[in-house]
């Protein structure tokens, strides 16, 4: 993978503020359509029986009364021959039961699915089912599940033990260097524990989807980040050719990964397709808000740390042992990716517990960010060292200091800028770090609260992965269509793609449009991994360049048609004599010679024997200006030898009420080196938006199960608490642009990293405020009071 060679010195559109979002008006005016909004004629609603117990198996299921309820059109039972015992492959890399006769978490969708005329009738029918269950013992804690002799939490899947195979890593212990050697070299060694409890609930729009059969063709409406991939799955599942599957990707009400990566997320669509076949009606499968509490984030973890370091702050060894619930991600990763720490050992034990499946909810880097930030917090505190100095001291990669990064920059033609230092300097100034930072517990405010500050840092995500394809057509009126299918999650990607095309092609931004909801067969990179702008950006650059070439050729070439020759718009010119700016083609040597793109592409006298100016029916003069491009950006994660050069830093100020334990966040500063900000407002949206999610979720979000029955107690949005507007104080966002990214124009991603890192922003601030650690997220007043010995 090489650095973008075509970075202009100046931009007309990119990087400027005030470019209009193409989805803004539709979303503000309520005309944007989401899957939840769609009702088709004759459509049925499919809802699932959910298990009332955390670990149970169906002994008997009587559906008769439900079948007799007027308005019930079909009931799919788990023992139906078409689904009984069957697991279907899913694109997430695994497989799942289509409809199990057993459950491993309370509220799991199992046993029966009812398709009825209305949602109310479906609910009523579900209540008429007579089910008897064999209740089995359940376990909610990972450690308990891994004790010898522990009862099986998901026996049909894991008949031998509750230890789960690792998904993202080959062995359960990740080793880099030699930690024992590192501990011997250390001046001091500390040990501590930290925990983050199960949280999730990421969808604003509770999940649903629609399948409709039209003869042997299928049409799907998907609230899912991977719409195009569903075509492949329909082929796998039902044997219909992908060319006969039509996808609709309406707008999505908040999608942050999560659901889309759970194996189960494709299963309801399969079920709706099956029911749609049987009933010969469109079927909308639908989860209500409680049903939607069916998965969580993969940082439900408990870690034990042992860290060795020198008096000057050089960290020599990090050893971690982590218990995870249901899925893991390598907790030691960031030490290797963006520090010079030479010795890291991280053991991962994943236990199947009786809670819903987990996956990356903005994002899978939560465990390594959690680990790195906790380690740096504790080492800085132990040494009574400014955490910023500690960070700068340990910046680097793969066990070597930043000289290694400098070498990489030189070799690949990157500017020699120190991203962390630049981020840190900008952030310090913004928050007043030098004036305000103090020893832990040392600053009591006039209002009686304890003032605290924290600093965290990490690399800036630049997965640089994925592939995308798009077409581009210049319409007869000179407007440009980007032709691609993609699921929107609100990060203003579509607008940015239009801006890239406008920049490269020379159009005004308002003349370029992308309608990504429709199945035009060419799929752009999915909104995953904070890397779709880096991948799709290249697609846009390529396709715009190709289209520009064709456009300028048309402008300078005589078109020979059957009835006539059409002279070029710019006679006696070559394409290299022309350029395009603001949707106008002009002669470079004499810009006063110009024609609009619209004039050049317009098909004069082209219509069917009519004198209309606009043609394109039977008498078309020239072929459409159409180009397409495909781009693949790289391997999943990071290729060996490739370094992450960009950094991010976040600061916060808190006031902790020592009498009530309340933690008030009074200021946050985000600093992100995104390489190049193509759309500054969009970058900022990910900064403050990510902060609200990150800080919010580590203050008030956790799933709470009843310890005695394993029932989820807070499966609603009154008791599961997202941050509201006033729950985080003013946020200042700073964008640094070092051009150190491998993405287009030197950019890197921004979608997930702020939310991931700021999830751990408060721990250090609370310690700085009260001199006590609350390393158990979410940081509630209860835990703060307990740390202070007042509860």
């Amino acid at each position, binding site marked *: 993978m090489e650095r973008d060679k075509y970075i202009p010195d100046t931009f007309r559109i990119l990087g400027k503020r005030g470019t209009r979002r193409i989805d803004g008006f539709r979303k503000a005016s309520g005309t944007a359509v989401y899957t939840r909004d769609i009702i088709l004629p004759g459509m049925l609603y499919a809802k699932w029986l959910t298990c*009332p117990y955390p670990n149970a198996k169906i002994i008997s299921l009587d559906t008769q009364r439900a079948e007799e309820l007027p308005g019930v059109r079909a009931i799919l039972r788990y023992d139906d021959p078409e689904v009984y015992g069957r697991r279907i492959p899913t694109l997430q890399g695994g497989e799942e039961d289509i409809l199990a006769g057993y459950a491993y978490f309370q509220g799991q969708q199992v046993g029966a699915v009812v398709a009825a005329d209305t949602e*109310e009738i479906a*609910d*009523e029918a579900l*209540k008429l089912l007579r089910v008897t269950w064999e209740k089995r013992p359940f376990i909610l804690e990972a450690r308990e599940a891994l004790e010898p002799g522990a009862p099986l939490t998901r026996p049909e899947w894991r008949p031998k033990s509750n230890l789960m195979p690792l998904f993202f890593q080959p062995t359960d212990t990740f080793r880099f260097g030699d930690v024992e050697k590192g501990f011997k070299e250390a001046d001091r060694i500390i040990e501590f524990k930290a925990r983050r409890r199960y949280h999730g609930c990421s969808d604003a729009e509770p999940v649903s989807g629609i399948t409709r059969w039209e003869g042997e063709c299928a049409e799907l409406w998907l609230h899912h980040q991977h719409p195009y991939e569903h075509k492949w799955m329909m082929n796998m599942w039902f044997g219909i050719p992908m060319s006969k599957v039509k996808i609709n990707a309406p707008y999505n009400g908040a999608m942050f990964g999560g659901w889309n990566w759970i194996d189960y997320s494709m299963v309801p669509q399969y079920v709706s397709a099956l029911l749609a076949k049987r009933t010969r009606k469109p079927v909308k499968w639908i989860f209500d808000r*409680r049903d939607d509490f069916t998965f969580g984030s993969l940082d439900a973890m408990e870690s034990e740390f042992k860290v060795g370091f020198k008096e000057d702050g050089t960290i020599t060894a990090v050893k971690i042992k982590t218990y995870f619930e249901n899925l893991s991600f390598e907790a030691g990763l960031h030490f290797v990716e963006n520090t010079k720490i030479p010795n890291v050992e991280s053991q991962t034990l994943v236990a199947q517990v009786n809670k819903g499946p987990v996956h990356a909810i903005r994002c899978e880097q939560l465990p390594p960010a959690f680990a790195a930030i906790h380690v740096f917090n504790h080492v800085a505190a132990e040494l009574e060292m400014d955490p910023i100095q500690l960070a700068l001291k340990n910046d680097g990669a793969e066990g070597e200091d930043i000289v290694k990064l400098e070498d990489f920059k030189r070799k690949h033609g990157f500017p020699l800028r120190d991203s962390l230092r630049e981020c840190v300097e900008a952030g310090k100034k913004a928050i007043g770090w030098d004036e305000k930072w103090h020893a832990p517990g040392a600053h009591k405010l006039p209002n009686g609260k304890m003032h605290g500050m924290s600093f965290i840092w990490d690399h800036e995500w630049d997965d640089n992965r994925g592939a995308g394809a798009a077409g581009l057509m210049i319409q007869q009126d000179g407007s440009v269509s980007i032709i691609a299918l993609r699921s929107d999650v609100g990060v203003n990607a579509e607008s940015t793609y239009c801006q890239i095309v406008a920049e490269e092609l020379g159009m005004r931004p308002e003349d370029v449009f992308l309608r990504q909801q429709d199945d035009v067969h060419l799929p752009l990179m999915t909104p995953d991994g904070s890397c779709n702008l880096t991948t799709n950006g290249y697609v846009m650059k390529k396709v715009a360049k190709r289209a520009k070439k064709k456009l300028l050729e048309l402008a300078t070439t005589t078109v020979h048609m059957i009835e006539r020759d059409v002279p070029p718009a710019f006679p006696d010119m070559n394409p290299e004599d022309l350029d395009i700016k603001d949707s106008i083609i002009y002669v470079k040597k004499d810009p006063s010679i110009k024609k609009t793109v619209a004039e050049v592409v317009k098909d004069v006298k082209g219509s069917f024997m009519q004198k209309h100016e606009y043609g394109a029916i039977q008498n078309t003069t020239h072929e459409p200006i159409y180009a397409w491009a495909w781009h693949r950006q790289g391997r999943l994660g990071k290729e060996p030898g490739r370094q992450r050069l960009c950094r991010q830093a976040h600061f916060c100020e808190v006031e902790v009420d020592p*009498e*009530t*334990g*309340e933690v008030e966040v009074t200021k946050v500063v985000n600093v992100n080196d995104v390489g190049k900000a193509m759309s500054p407002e969009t970058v900022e949206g990910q900064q403050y938006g990510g902060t609200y999610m990150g800080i919010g979720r580590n*203050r*008030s979000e956790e799933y*709470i*199960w*009843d*310890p*005695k*029955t394993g*029932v989820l*107690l*807070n*499966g*609603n949005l*009154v*008791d599961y*608490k997202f*941050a*509201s*507007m*006033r*729950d985080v104080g003013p946020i200042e966002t700073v964008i640094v642009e070092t051009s150190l990214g491998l993405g287009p124009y030197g950019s890197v991603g921004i979608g997930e990293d702020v939310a991931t890192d700021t999830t751990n922003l408060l721990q250090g601030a609370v310690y700085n405020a009260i001199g006590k650690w609350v390393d158990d997220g979410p940081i*509630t*007043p*209860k835990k703060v*009071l*307990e740390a202070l010995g*007042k*509860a």
Partner: protein
Amino acid sequence: MKKFAHFNARSIDEAVSYLNRYGGKAHVIAGGTDLLGKMKDEILPKYPEALVNIRTIPGLEFVKEEGRALRLGALVRLEDIGKDAIVNKNYTALAEAARKTASPHIREMGTIGGNLCQDIRCWYYRNPHNRFPCLRKGGGRCYAIEGDNRYHSIFGGSVEEGCYAVHPSDTAPALIALNGRLKTSKRMLNAEDFFEVGVERTTVLDRDEIVTEIEIPTPEADTKSAFLKFAIRKSIDFPIVNCAAMITSKGGKVTDARICLNAVYVIPYRAKKAEEAILGKEISEKNAEAAGEAAVSDAKPLKDNRYMVQIARILVKRSILACK
């Protein structure tokens, strides 16, 4: 939601008539912000067969100060109470409590009567489809005792049933601190006597009895009132602990004190020991702190809610100080 019959009552008599006709299977609906949630989740063993809308009854939405008392129609919206100039000036605790309730939208819909009559929020009681048929629904046991009780009572369970679910209202303790009264279709009740624990019951109201008016005597001179709420989020949330106080000070010494905590016990908790502790003393940090200590001296926290004792202690102290 499951089906039900619906009636728009045009008078109290008509509403009472429907309630009697359905013999306990009908519910009054005003703002609907509590009831509809219960119905959507079908938390109760029996689903209402009918709803009687009392918002169509004229003459129950007014705010008047007359004859040395504030009179509020039971249907006055919480938002209007929170914004009312007279309520803010003379009955501050109530205005602050109304303003801190829930969210702006809920306050635009929710009525003072409904807020006082609202049902408990215990997450066992509220689990959908009556998953936990607890004491409060006529079942055999309390599930919070052995379960997660981080938001439950710190002063023990209700005397008869042994229920530990707290009363969640913000306006209730304010009304009690302000020595308010409720007028129903049958009688006049002191606010303190209004709350009672029973099966699916949080008040002493008969099945066919409706609150029509709230009355608060105008506080005497040299009296201040205050209300404080502690919750996880700054909006939307129910209180973890709240506290209202009304204190009269003459010559630098407290001559009358009414302090009421809520969300700490099965009904609003009049902190009598705190009142005794501050009577006759000046309002100072030290004295307020002692009163706070006295307020929780009878606390019997459960395994998960010790921290609420500390918060209750502090809110009592701070609400006294706010009345200086």
